[in-house]
């Protein structure tokens, strides 16, 4: 009796494993592509997905052959679950905006071993875990734009503070470190003092508290720089309501910030930056396709065409500090000011 039961279980297991083995072996001519964003419920991620989808449609990938997944929370765990299911679905390529630089490593290696091409966009992982990275704007370019904005708005001298997302956010930390390096390297910025880096955890309430604390702690503060969409909106509201002389710049969504951008004393933010998340999604889509088709391998120096995108064809450039690994830079950060904000607020 017992023996028969064991035989039955073993047989069932064998059958199951056969199915499991079959699954990834989809028809090679039908390559399938996946996009994993940081989380659901954020218009920025939605716009990335929109660009990704537009390219997939434009190049004629069938509706069932591209998958867009928004994890339920902006955490590594949520992304790991999504990647797991994509591996078992046997997709050809995964484009992912990572929620953590290191914690996804094992899962991505597993995907790589299953023959899946990994591209990152928006937020990178350790370079060894992916083939290339679609960089919305080089870290240097963003940091330079932000430091120059602070310099310009402060009038060349004075105190400024940074209001970031969480203390582990990959992007924000890279930008902030680069800002510090740029400010230290050039004597032009020597009269600017960074008083504090505060973390609002991309939460309205906490970002509000942190902004108010900055105002209370540093009476001579001139500028707050918030390189995060939730933080900049919360800070803009605090400054504008208080009619504070402190001004704001950073990275924000035009539609969210439209009410706060302007040159007069009634508006808290003279100008800010961002890139076009739709274009970033498009770039990730084209890069995924080029990798699957074998047009590029992820080597520095590879080039590929990206449809009608502005800077096409794109070239894979070396990552600063890890020269053997590549990235693709989308372009310069885009400046939103009183002149163009109304128009962009309608778009995203």
């Amino acid at each position, binding site marked *: 009796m017992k023996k028969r039961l064991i035989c039955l279980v073993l047989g069932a297991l064998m059958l199951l494993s056969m199915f499991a083995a079959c699954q990834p072996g989809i028809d090679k001519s039908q390559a399938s592509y996946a996009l994993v964003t940081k989380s659901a*419920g954020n*218009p920025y*991620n939605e716009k990335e997905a929109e660009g990704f989808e537009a390219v997939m449609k434009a190049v004629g990938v069938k509706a069932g052959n591209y998958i867009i997944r928004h994890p339920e929370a902006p955490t590594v765990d949520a992304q790991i679950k999504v990647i797991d299911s994509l591996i078992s679905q046997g997709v050809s390529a995964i484009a992912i905006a990572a929620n953590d630089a290191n914690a996804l490593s094992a899962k991505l290696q597993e995907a790589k071993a299953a023959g899946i091409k990994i591209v990152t966009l928006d937020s990178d992982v350790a370079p060894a875990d992916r083939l290339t990275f679609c960089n919305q704007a080089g870290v240097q370019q963003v940091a330079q734009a932000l430091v120059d904005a602070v310099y310009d708005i402060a009038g060349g001298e004075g105190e400024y503070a940074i209001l970031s997302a969480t203390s582990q956010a990959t992007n924000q930390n890279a930008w902030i470190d680069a800002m510090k390096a740029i400010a230290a390297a050039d004597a032009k910025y020597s009269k600017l003092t960074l008083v504090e880096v505060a973390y609002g955890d991309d939460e309205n309430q906490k970002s509000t508290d942190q902004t108010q604390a900055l105002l*209370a702690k540093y009476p001579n503060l001139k500028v707050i720089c918030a390189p995060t969409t939730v933080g900049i909106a919360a800070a803009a509201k605090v400054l504008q*309501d208080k009619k504070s002389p402190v001004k704001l710049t950073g990275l924000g969504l035009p539609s969210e910030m439209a009410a706060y951008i302007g040159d007069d004393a009634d508006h808290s933010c003279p100008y800010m930056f961002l890139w076009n998340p739709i274009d970033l999604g498009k770039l990730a889509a084209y890069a995924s396709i080029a990798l699957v088709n074998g047009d590029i391998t992820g080597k520095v120096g590879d080039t590929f065409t990206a449809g009608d995108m502005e800077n096409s064809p794109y070239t894979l450039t070396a990552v600063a500090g890890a020269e053997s690994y590549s990235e693709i830079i989308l372009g310069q950060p885009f400046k939103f000011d009183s002149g163009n904000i109304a128009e962009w607020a309608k778009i995203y």
Partner: protein
Amino acid sequence: MKFKEILRKITGNHEVSLALILVLMFIVVDILAGGTFHSGTNIADIFRNNALTLVMSLGMLLVLLTGGIDISITGVLAFSGMSIGLLMKNHVLDSIPLVPRCILLFIIAIAIGSCCGLINGFIIAKGKVSPIICTLGAMYVWRGMAYIISNSAWASAADVAGYSDFGKDGSVGPYIILAAAFIVFFILMKWTGFGRKVYAIGSNKEAAAISGINVDRVQIAVYTIMGSLAGLAGALSVSIYASAQPTMQTGTEMDVIAACVIGGVSMSGGRGTVLGTLLGGIFYAIVYKALPLVGLESIWQNLIKGVIILGVVIINVVTQRMMKRRNLARREI
């Protein structure tokens, strides 16, 4: 002798001891922050930025008093807040003049919250489902609904312009709502039959049922009230932060529960007061506000917050035990 009497008074009354801790902490923070903490604007900011937690802690008090718990509140908050945010974004009610429109939006948010709460109450009371399980499910359902209706877009400051003036820095709106809510609940819990029924159920459900209290009905009412307050908090949140996001206030339910527990509300039901809840809420708000001000590194703030909460709860438990022992001793004589 006199000193001993005073000491007994302090340790014998939870509210008094908590108020003393509060004052002490306020002074310490004020000194650490270089005297900037006791300014009028700062105190106003504390109440405004924690209005949501304070309002919801009243509902949580009722829920905890019946021996239940509700962790779906921020999901309900997001759903109701997102709903009215979208109404504004899509200009649905624009034909109505501003003031009645804002009142209507508040009513809609409260109504949505009440419905969510009613469903919770019904499942818990009639279906005999454990409150934490039921509201855990509800938390995902309502948060998920907020995601779905928002379609991953936010209602931005420009969309809610006008409405957001109610919660703007300098507006008295949030303070009026806070004061009204606490006065109403103080009266409700102290001088009405309903309040006494809630306490009775929490102390001993069976005894309450035998003595003729309709336990199910009171439970449904309690969760409905909690839902309506979560809806109100949703409306307030959109007004105060001039933004409706499906992710808003994720995790705040724990702050609300913590505020109640600090205020001396028992997790097992039957014990807790509106005044204690208010003090607990203010305590929590001050900790929140003070940590970034006193010059702590950001990454330390969560740790310190946790230690402070634990510390206060331990003091709570110890004083309460002392109180009990003393009462017992008195009885022996």
